[in-house]
């Protein structure tokens, strides 16, 4: 059994190990306003290039990706910030989110008096959400752990057994060249934490909603930037359980401290 972990009850989103308020821009045009709101209220947000000029399967694909992020168990409440004329309509996105979680609001730039008006309205809405949905803590012992396998890892099956042995669920995602697509998949699979083994030629990276534990290889790049990693691969079987307990209970990973994390939504069609 894993040690008891302090966690948060997030309604239909599930039990999370972070109590994030997600300021979700429904389109690239609202990412800057979203960041201003998030900075002021202590929420998380991210820059992305989507939400408009998308066609075909990407319309539903991007919509579903945003819904998955908003429904992530580490999220306590969601404020959608829309522009107004984009393909992914903010109020429709918010309506879909409200079907499963009441802790959702939206604001639209074109209907809120522009940038300053929307920042003010968004900050107010975010604070209202925080007041209406205070953190509800509980204890848990079982987490869903995503493993981003960006390189060959000799201890992967031992690691998997170790984690499963203490009651954690494990999802492994093989990433192609960088971890970005893998992180997006693991977010959609609602992983609480990611253990990332980036390719030896890739640096560390993070993700706004999930703490990422970056595991260093003994390669030249990784050892040169060892300070950006949380743990060495050679130490992982000995130390990972204690590290997971610590991170799950609130200790920030290096990527979290660095605010590191750009998301990359999966795309199947060129933009128009």
């Amino acid at each position, binding site marked *: 059994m894993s040690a008891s972990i302090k966690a948060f009850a997030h309604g239909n989103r599930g039990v999370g190990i972070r109590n994030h308020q997600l300021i979700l821009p429904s389109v690239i045009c609202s990412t800057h306003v979203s960041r201003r709101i998030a900075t002021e209220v202590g929420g998380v947000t991210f820059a992305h290039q989507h939400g408009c000029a998308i066609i075909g399967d990407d319309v539903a694909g991007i919509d579903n990706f945003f819904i998955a992020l908003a429904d992530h168990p580490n999220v306590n409440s969601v404020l959608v910030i829309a522009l107004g004329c984009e393909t992914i309509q903010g109020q429709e996105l918010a309506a879909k989110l409200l079907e499963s979680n009441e802790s959702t609001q939206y604001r639209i730039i074109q209907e809120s008096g522009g940038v300053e008006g929307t920042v003010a309205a968004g900050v107010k809405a975010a604070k209202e959400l925080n007041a209406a949905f205070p953190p509800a803590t509980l204890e848990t012992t079982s987490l869903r752990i995503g493993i981003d396998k960006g390189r060959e890892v000799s201890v992967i099956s031992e690691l998997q057994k170790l984690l499963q042995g203490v009651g954690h669920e494990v999802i492994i995602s093989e990433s192609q060249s960088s971890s970005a697509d893998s992180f997006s998949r693991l977010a959609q699979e609602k992983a609480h934490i990611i253990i990332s083994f980036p390719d030896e030629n890739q640096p560390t990276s993070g993700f706004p909603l999930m703490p990422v534990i970056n595991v260093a290889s003994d390669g030249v790049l990784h050892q040169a930037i060892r300070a950006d990693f949380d743990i060495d691969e050679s130490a992982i079987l000995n130390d990972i359980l204690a590290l997971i307990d610590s991170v799950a209970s609130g200790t920030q990973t290096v990527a979290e401290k660095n605010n*590191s994390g750009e998301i990359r939504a999966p795309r199947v069609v060129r933009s128009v």
Partner: protein
Amino acid sequence: MTSQLFAYKRETGQWGLRNHVLILPLHSALASSARAIADASDGAVAISHDWSGEVDNDLPRILFTLTGYAANPNNYAVVFLSIGTPNEKQIIAGAQSLGLTRFTTLSLPEIGSMEKLQEKAISVANEYMKGAAAEKRIAAPWSAIVLGLECGGSDALSGITANPALGVASDRLVELGATSVLGETTEILGAEHLLAARAIDPEVGKKIVAMVARYEASINYEGIDIRGAQPSRGNIEGGLSTLEEKSLGAAKKAGNAPFTGVLEFGEKPLVPGLYFMDTPGHDIEQLAGFGAGHINIVVFTSGRGTPTGSAIMPTIKVSTNTPMFESIPDLIDLDAGTIADGVETLAQVGDRIFDEILEVANGKQTKAELGGHHEFSLSRMYNTVV
């Protein structure tokens, strides 16, 4: 008002209308650091993007975009944040060959951590900021202006007010010897024959038609008819009925001047004149292509209103209708809705846009600049899902 342009002369002979210090992350993992560096510096700007060094079919397009963007004449200096891959080195070398002279490459593995990289980059950026502040604008010819024409969130008035008024300003600038670039191939579909008829010679006309056909084929290849996806829902709510109607309105931004040539996405025009550049209609991807193509100022017309701008190119927003201008005043620089209201003529608003271009070129801050809007987006032709 004065009708003299003052700008920053670059060693390439190009002119900068701004003197930016750009923090350019060459890997998406460094994008958050780039933003933190710019925020903590004395006025440097940053972009973020989602390219993590992937080697796929879009690689040439991504390298071309970032290379051209780094060498945009509005950049006084560039601080590259690098992992040190050969492709990153190619971007830096390419920017140098395009005329970028002041730059520093900060290598993450050499510095050892993102935290130390940020500290170092802030001090490098601040040194460049001092140099940028010491440089003076000098009298510049009209050819110094390389204008980008953009529209986004179009409505039924776009083709009647803001777009033709911008066309008036564009025509005046081209007549004076400046360069003007129309983009958004999506929004030329159905109007390409009209643009081709204005080409300086039949060859250029054929190129315009071929570029549009190539674009439509690349969408049809995906099994999708773009005419079902455009105009967008926002456009329809704004009163547009078909893609052709949207295109006829969008093309009016380019006035009536003859087309000197066509440009690939992110390609820079070599001699003054009016050009057509093959870009997506996605506002921010288009702005990235304009930046890569060394456009140094943009006029962006909008019916619905948008806050977006560019880290390096001043972007003047023009509303097509007065109610929108009044409801979201901190997004829009000029109102062309006065034409529909019968308050001003097309020529008068065109002159007002021309005057604003000159003032902004000479240093007046746009609403998007004042708001710190530095959106950026790489354009990809292929999917990102393997």
